[in-house]
């Protein structure tokens, strides 16, 4: 039993938003994630075959309470992403449609666990234990009922991240573009048909982005900057670049994009860094649940936008048929 306080105690009032954000990086059933805690918030990292890495940033602003105990170094633990998402999902059950729920997250618990507590009103408990030795306790009260939901998820000692995803700019002018998330997803979904690899070409004149799939057939999707500024919202490129990415990795970046992102008509930013490393950024709203809380929000009060940032890093394919510099 540790004598000091927990490294982290925080509360979330939008479980669904967190579930959405975490689901966005869930591209297969079994995925091991590493969670890193700091005074700025929580970062969840998943990766695959040293070619694809995704990070979900849950900054402290997303929490209605965030007390970081100032541990030396950043505490990290490994957890099964699928289990964490499924478990959090059980906490997003509407409580008879009356109220939203609030999860309390604690780390570590008495046995070095990470604890998640989810409160609705008074005295209900959801508890998640993550052994080895981290536990989530989620406490949740269900209306005036004496009811609680609890969960404990076991964690692992995290493996070291096998590949350093230091993303460096490719030059003085960033090579980037911002496209409507829905359009990006649609384009990448369409590219499934040609097959295994997709070439992304950025060129300054005319300013455009091209996705080109070659395999069972050819498919080329062009986003012209001046033709449709609604679709391609921003564009920055001073020279033509072209890199190939494995389709399955590219697909992972949009396959589970939350429906709220599409609904909110958000954009995704894609940046090509040194060596062709592709960074894909999405924004997921973790806003307070839409049910108004008369006792919390006075009229005219605008809640600051609460956004979870999601980043994917995709390594280009080795075989260089690429035109670069």
């Amino acid at each position, binding site marked *: 039993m540790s004598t000091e306080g927990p490294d982290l105690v925080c509360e979330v009032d939008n479980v669904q938003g967190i579930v959405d954000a975490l689901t966005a990086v869930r591209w297969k059933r079994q995925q091991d994630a590493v969670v890193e805690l700091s005074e700025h918030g929580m970062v969840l990292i998943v990766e695959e075959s040293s070619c694809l890495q995704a990070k979900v940033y849950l900054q402290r602003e997303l929490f209605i309470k965030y007390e970081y105990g100032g541990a030396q170094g950043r505490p990290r633990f490994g957890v*099964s992403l699928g*289990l964490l998402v*499924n*478990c959090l*999902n*059980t906490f*997003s*059950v*509407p*409580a*008879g449609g009356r109220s939203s729920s609030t999860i309390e997250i604690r780390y570590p618990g008495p046995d070095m666990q990470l604890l998640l507590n989810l409160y609705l009103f008074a005295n*209900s*408990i*959801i*508890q*998640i*234990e*993550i*052994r080895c030795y981290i536990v989530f306790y989620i406490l949740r009260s*269900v209306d005036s*009922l*004496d*009811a*609680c*939901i*609890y*969960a*404990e*998820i*076991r964690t692992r000692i995290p493996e070291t991240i096998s590949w350093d995803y230091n993303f460096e700019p490719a030059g003085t002018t960033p090579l980037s573009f911002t496209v409507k998330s829905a359009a990006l997803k649609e384009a990448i979904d369409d590219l499934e048909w040609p097959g295994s690899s997709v070439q992304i070409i950025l060129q300054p004149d005319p300013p455009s982005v091209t996705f080109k799939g070659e395999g069972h057939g050819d498919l080329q999707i062009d986003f012209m900057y001046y033709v449709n500024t609604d679709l391609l919202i921003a564009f920055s490129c001073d020279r033509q670049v072209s890199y190939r990415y494995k389709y399955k990795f590219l697909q992972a970046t949009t396959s589970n994009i939350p429906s709220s992102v599409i609904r909110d008509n958000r954009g995704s930013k894609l940046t090509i860094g040194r060596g062709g490393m592709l960074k894909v950024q999405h924004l997921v709203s973790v806003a307070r649940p839409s049910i108004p809380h008369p006792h919390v929000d006075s009229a005219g009060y605008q809640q600051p936008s609460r956004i979870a940032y999601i980043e994917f890093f995709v390594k280009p394919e080795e075989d260089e048929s690429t035109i670069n510099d």
Partner: protein
Amino acid sequence: MKFKAFLTENGVNLLEKRFLPALDKMGKVCHLYLTRDHTMFLHNLLNGDGIQSVAQFRKEALFDDYRISSQNEDRIAFAIDISLLQRAVRSSVSICTEFGSGPTHNRLQIKLVKKLPPNCTQPMPFLTFETKGYKSAVIQDVPISKPFSRAQVIELQTALDMAQDLPQTLVQVPDLNQLQNFVDRLKHVGDLLNVSISKYGDLLVQISTTLITVGAEFQKLLVIGEQADAPAEDRNLSAQTRSARAILRGDAQSVQVSVKHFAKSLQCHLAKPDCAFYGIAPQGACLTVIFQFFIPGSRQTDKSISLHCRLPVLDPGSS
């Protein structure tokens, strides 16, 4: 062996809108067991492993002019496909409302018949629905199994008698929908559900795997049967600890059931019961859920309708 009766308007409503949708979730095929006074829909009473459900109606709850006779103390049983039965009742209702000035005038007769279907040499048994519309009559034949032999009926009756044991302690679940919502999500976490019920009125449902424990606890529920006051010293302990202590004290029982079975039992809310009670049968033989129906507009139990399920226990647990 003869069976003939008229479904009442109330009976049609009960079956079409409430019980058949709920029973359909229990399993595709059930046994329809008719006696002089009762009609019963029985699931899995004869084959051991599934969730057992017993829906029982006094004949007046469903029928008018109920006539039954058989050489086996006027008892008839056969297997029937619930979805086919549901379809027949549903279309009969639509015929009634389409043609008549009111369903009461268009009586819906149901009877047991033997017919020679096309391309068959052997006559086959059917449950026939005869709906009299304004100027027409529509007949629907729902195929059924060969009616049970005397020995089979006795076997079914014995199984039914065995399925009537009451748990010593029953707790009332406050919100079936909410519990169902929770359990539906739990299904993604694991397969085995631990259910503990205490005399203090606590209901704990929990999934435990090597990686995760997720559970929900409901406290201070209405208790029927044996009850006790929760010890004050337990008040600030965690749900799991309190449950474990109550089991040690002999004030609670715990069993392990399939999450799928538990979710199915919650589907019974489609029958629109007024209350639901969970309890663990003596020696942890099964987890029982009993649904209570009130006489419309009152808080009095409607004794003409009963529904209960028995969930097989996968592990005797700590009983």
